[in-house]
């Protein structure tokens, strides 16, 4: 049984027929790194938010299950669900510039949950924060813990958010495009850091990205999302050798190769997009009868 198992999850904008998620199913085993890829607007972030219980109020879940470690999150009352998620999951957010509270020092932003919710002593929590900051290669953790977010660079802040995500030893971390908001020069370091932290802590990781190159380096399996619909679910070797779906093949052809970064690229053609859209809509119709 997977640690996280999403089954037939559907969501839409409240009071509107447009589907944001269409019977999404995906599994993340304990310790596994799964990529979640798709173009912008495909619904990748919505899946992450649905798991973490942070969907916007305008979005409602219309069906399906999100089973975390054997418990269906959607059947729990909000307070209980939050406690469970807080204990087992963590988020590495997309934009490190907005994900830290501007009026609070870094130290408490890492330690507060350990003290408030997990009832650690303040001293233990602070030691934990120092160790983690050192682990994410932040020089002078003591000083950084006393700093305010605006005194630190974007790369530093993302390291802090990574450290913070690992603080309570979660079983599953959701990383939502954790490098897109960063300088190109820092992106690679942060990516390496996440991979290294994941390997060392053995945490399962749902890695949201629109970059197949990144997926090939970090993940063991992936789900391809289009218009809220999972087109393909493969292991990484299978996907890169024998992609099943035409859209996947087109996506691969549109991605610079790890081995040949300057090779020729073909953008995803309109024909493939039209065929994919038709397939998604046909699947919708057959599900509704």
């Amino acid at each position, binding site marked *: 049984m997977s640690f996280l198992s999403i089954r037939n999850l559907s969501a839409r904008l409240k009071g509107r027929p447009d589907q944001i998620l269409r019977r999404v199913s995906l599994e993340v085993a304990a310790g596994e790194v799964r990529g979640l890829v798709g173009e912008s607007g495909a619904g990748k972030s919505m899946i992450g938010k649905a798991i973490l219980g*942070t969907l916007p109020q305008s979005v409602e879940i219309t069906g399906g299950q999100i089973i975390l470690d054997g418990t269906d999150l959607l059947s729990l009352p909000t307070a209980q669900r939050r406690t469970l998620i*807080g204990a087992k999951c*963590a988020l590495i957010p997309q934009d490190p510039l907005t994900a830290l*509270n*501007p*009026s609070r020092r870094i130290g408490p932003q890492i330690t507060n*949950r350990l003290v408030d919710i997990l009832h650690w002593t303040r001293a233990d929590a602070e030691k934990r924060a120092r160790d983690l900051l050192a682990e994410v290669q932040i020089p002078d953790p003591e000083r950084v813990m006393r700093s305010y977010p605006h005194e630190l660079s974007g790369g530093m802040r993302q390291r802090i*958010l990574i450290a913070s995500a690992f603080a309570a030893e979660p079983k599953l971390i959701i990383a939502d495009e954790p490098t897109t908001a960063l300088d190109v020069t820092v992106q690679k370091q942060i990516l390496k850091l996440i991979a290294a932290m994941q390997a060392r802590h053995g945490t399962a990781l749902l890695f949201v990205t629109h970059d197949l190159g990144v997926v090939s380096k970090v993940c063991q399996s992936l789900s391809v999302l289009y218009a809220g619909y999972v087109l393909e679910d493969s292991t990484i070797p299978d996907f890169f050798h024998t992609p099943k779906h035409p859209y996947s093949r087109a996506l691969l052809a549109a991605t610079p190769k790890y081995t040949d970064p300057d090779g020729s690229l073909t953008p995803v053609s309109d024909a493939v997009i039209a065929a994919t859209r038709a397939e998604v809509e046909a699947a919708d119709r057959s599900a509704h009868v």
Partner: protein
Amino acid sequence: MQFLQSVLLRLCTTLITLAGVAVIVFFVIRVVPGNPIAMMLPPGATEADVARLTALYGLDKSIPQQFLIWVSGVLQGDFGTSITTKQPVLQLVLSRLPATLELSVMALIIAVILGGFMALTGTRLRGSKTEAAIDVGNGMALSVPDFLWGLILILTFGVLIPIFHISGRVTPSLPLPFTTNFYLTESVLRLRFDLWLDIAAHMFMPALALAIPLAAIIGQLLKQSLKETMHLDYVTLARTKGYSETHVILREALPNAILPTLTLVGVQFTFLIGGTVIIERLFSYEGLGNMAIDAVINRDLPLIQGIVILFAVIFTGVNLLVDLTYAALNPRLRHA
């Protein structure tokens, strides 16, 4: 360093403001018709009596001359003598100031509690009927000015269901052991909670009348800022950490959402103090505002000047305090 500089700059502009207020008030009340001397003499007083008194109060000199005399007095702490009561203006004004300060601060506290409660409840119950009801209530509170609230409160809790005092500052028959005029504060310090209760029950209605419009403003603005803040990434992140929604609102969103409200409360608090003039009259509350109206009716020029200057000092002082608090609460400004 920069901080100190900006404080000094603020102090300078404050002084200039006060000087401007002094000039304007001094000349305006002398241009307005009405003779204070004629009003204080009994009918049948002779021309000579009038001339003698006019000279006594220096009103026979030219207006610029009078101004110079007054200013040089003020600079030495002498605000002149009240024409109606013959007492030093400074002493009169300072004896009434505590009543008005206590009333204003009480009103501010009520407004902050009411408004804060509205904003927090509305945010916690976003999208519910309760939030809609709060919005409607705020709108109504805002569209009625403080003195009308005063009348409504007098009619409701003074006449229909008489549970609060609606006149005066304290029950006149009570013996008061106080050495200062800060009755409410001193009753607490002396542990005379019986007196405290009586004074608070007198103060509650006028304070509430002053507080209701401000509470509505605080409620609306704070709720708006909270609503915007609740969508920010760090708030969402706090939710995923297992905190309750109430904790997320109070500890993550509120400290950041409160800054615009704080600035506004500063400005609005000065309006509230201005509102005491009419509210004190309405509730026969013996404060500065009530005294100001008497002074204007009697054309007691030195007293009017003294009261206006004091109000101006309070206004600018409040504004300065708000700016400093704002800087202290916002780490970005503190380090800049």
